C-alpha cells in the first residue's frame, strides 16, 4: 500500500466506474442505473457500427429499397407503421391478399439491416 502511495497519488474515486458527463438537467434518481445505461449506450453504438460494415452481405441496391418503399405505401396490405415489413408481409399472406414473394425473399436476405426490416416511418414515434 505504501509503495503505491509513493508512485502516484491515488484517489478513492479512481476505483469508481467512469461516468459520462451529462448536462445539468440530469434527473437525480438515476445514480443506480448509470453504469448500466453507459454499458447499454456503448453496446448500442457498437451494434450500429457493426451492421453496415458486416462483410457477409453487400448493401441492398436502390432498386430493392424502392420496391420495399412501394410495398410500404401500397394500401392493399393495410397500415405499415409500427410493425416490421416482414410482419406486414406475413399478415397480408394470412389474410389472402397474396403479396409478392420477391419482397419476402429480399426481407429475409437483408434481415439485419434496419433500413430494410423496418418501415418507412420507423423513425417517427407511433
Amino acid at each position: 500500500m505504501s509503495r503505491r502511495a509513493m508512485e502516484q497519488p491515488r484517489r478513492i474515486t479512481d476505483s469508481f466506474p467512469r461516468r459520462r458527463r451529462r448536462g445539468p438537467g440530469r434527473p437525480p434518481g438515476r445514480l443506480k442505473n448509470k453504469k448500466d445505461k453507459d454499458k447499454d449506450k456503448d453496446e448500442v453504438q457498437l451494434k450500429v457500427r457493426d451492421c453496415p460494415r458486416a462483410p457477409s452481405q453487400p448493401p441492398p441496391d436502390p432498386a430493392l429499397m424502392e420496391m420495399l418503399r412501394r410495398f410500404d405505401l401500397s394500401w392493399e396490405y393495410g397500415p405499415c407503421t409500427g410493425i416490421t415489413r416482414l410482419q406486414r408481409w406475413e399478415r397480408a399472406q394470412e389474410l389472402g391478399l397474396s403479396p409478392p414473394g420477391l419482397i419476402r425473399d429480399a426481407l429475409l436476405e437483408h434481415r439485419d439491416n434496419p433500413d430494410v426490416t423496418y418501415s418507412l416511418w420507423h423513425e417517427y414515434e407511433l
Partner: protein
Amino acid sequence: MFSEQAAATAQGLLAPPSAEPPTFPRVAVSGYSDCSQPFQLGERSFARQYAHIYAVRLAGMRPGLERRARSRWGNDVVLRRLSELQEGEKCCVVGTLFKSMQLQPSILQEISEEHNLVPQPPLPKYIQPSDELILEDELQRIKLEGAIDVQRLVTGTIVAVYGCEQDDGRFLVEDHCFADLPPPLPWSGPSSDRYVLLASGLGLGSVSGEALLSTQLLVDVVTGQLGAEGEQSCAAHITRVILAGNLLSQNTQSRDTINKAKYLTKKTQAASVEAVKMLDEILLQLCTSVPVDVMPGEFDPTNYTLPQQPLHRCMLPLASAYATLRLVTNPYQASLDGVRFLGTSGQNISDIFKYSSMDDYLEILEWTLLAGHISPTAPDTLGCYPFYKSDPFILTECPHVYFCGNAPHFQSKLLQGKEGQRVLLLTVPDFSATQTACLVNLHDLSCQPITFSSFGADSEDGDMELEH
C-alpha cells in the same frame, strides 16, 4: 333442478343420524379444453396505432360479408369499394361503421383550454337524435342515410349496405346486413344431466355485507353442505363453476389515496387487499370440491384493456394450491364436455348499451352474435390491446353457450340458426345486487336461475329461502 328431487327427502333432516351417511360422488370431469389462446397476450407492445385492428377486422370479415350480400341480394349484385362508386348505380359496399355522436366523451375536448369546459359527467346513454352514421372502408368514408337505424348501431361494426350514391355525396341505403351467425360447431354434449353454475359480480369488499351470506349459501349449495340428501345429490351433478367477473366490488376502486396527502394515507392499505383475501377464502372452499374458472372483470386487479389477462395466482395463495382453480382471461372460451362456452364479464355489452338505443342486455348479446363480433366498440370507446395480426374478437365459430356477466337481470334465450346453429344466450346477473346465479344443463342447453335470499326487509318470520 333442486326442488323436484329435494322435497321427497326433506324428512331425512329430522331423522336421527344414520350409522353410514350416504355419499354422493361428484360427476366426473370429462373433456375440458381451454380455447382462449387468442385472448392470451404474451409479450405486449403498445407502440402501435389502432389502425391495424380496424384494417384486420375489415379484411377478415369482408369475405363472409360479401358471401352474405350475394345470398341476400342475388348473385349478380355489384360489389364496389367506395372509391369506385358511381352516382345513381345500385351497388353493395362493405365497410366499417362509424357513428359520430355529439355527446361522446372526447379527451381532446376535455383538455382543450379554449373551451374552458367542465368535463362531462358520465351519462347512462350518449345517444342523441343528431347522431350520424358514416361508412368507412380502406380508403374513403361516406355518410349513410335511409333504411338504417342510426340510434341502434354502434361504431366498429362491419356491415354490408345496398343502395346508391346520391348527388349530394351521401349514400342512400335501401337494405343492409351483418355477418350473421357464424358456422355451427358439431354437437357432442353429454348424454346425462350435467350442470355448470355461472355467477358474476360477487362484489367482495363492498361497504355493506348483505351479499356475503348469499355468497356463503351459494358455496354451501355447490359443495353439498346445504339441504337434505335430495339437494346434495342434485349438487353432485354440478361439474363446474364459472365466476364471470367483478369478484371485487366497485368500492375497492377508490383512488382517494392519490389525491390525499401522504401523511394521511401512509398506514392505509388498498381496500382490494382485504377483498382479495376474502375471495381467496371463498375460492378455497369451492376449489376443494369443484373445478372453478375465475374470469376477471371491470373492477378486478388485472389490466384494464380487453382482453383482460388472468388474475395472478400469487394473489390467491390458499386456493391456487388446488389444480381445480383455473384463472382465465376475460373473453373466455372453453369446451366443457363437448359444449363450447364463450362469454365475457359484461364490459362489451354495457359499452354497447351506452352508445346504442338498445336497452335489453339479451338483445345486445344477440345482436353481437349476429354482427359476428364480440365487442365492436373496442377500441373506440372500450379499451383494447392494439392487435395487428388478427382481431381475436371476430366470431369464427358459433358457440353453444354465449354468456355475458354483470347484467342487471337474469335472461336466457335459445337461438336457432338457419345452418343448424343452436346457441343458448345467457345474461348472468350481478350477484351482489340480485343474489341470483345460473345453472346451465349441458345435456339439453336449458338454463334456470337460482336465487339465494335471506332475511328480506319485508319478510316477517325471517326465513331463509332457497328458491328458483
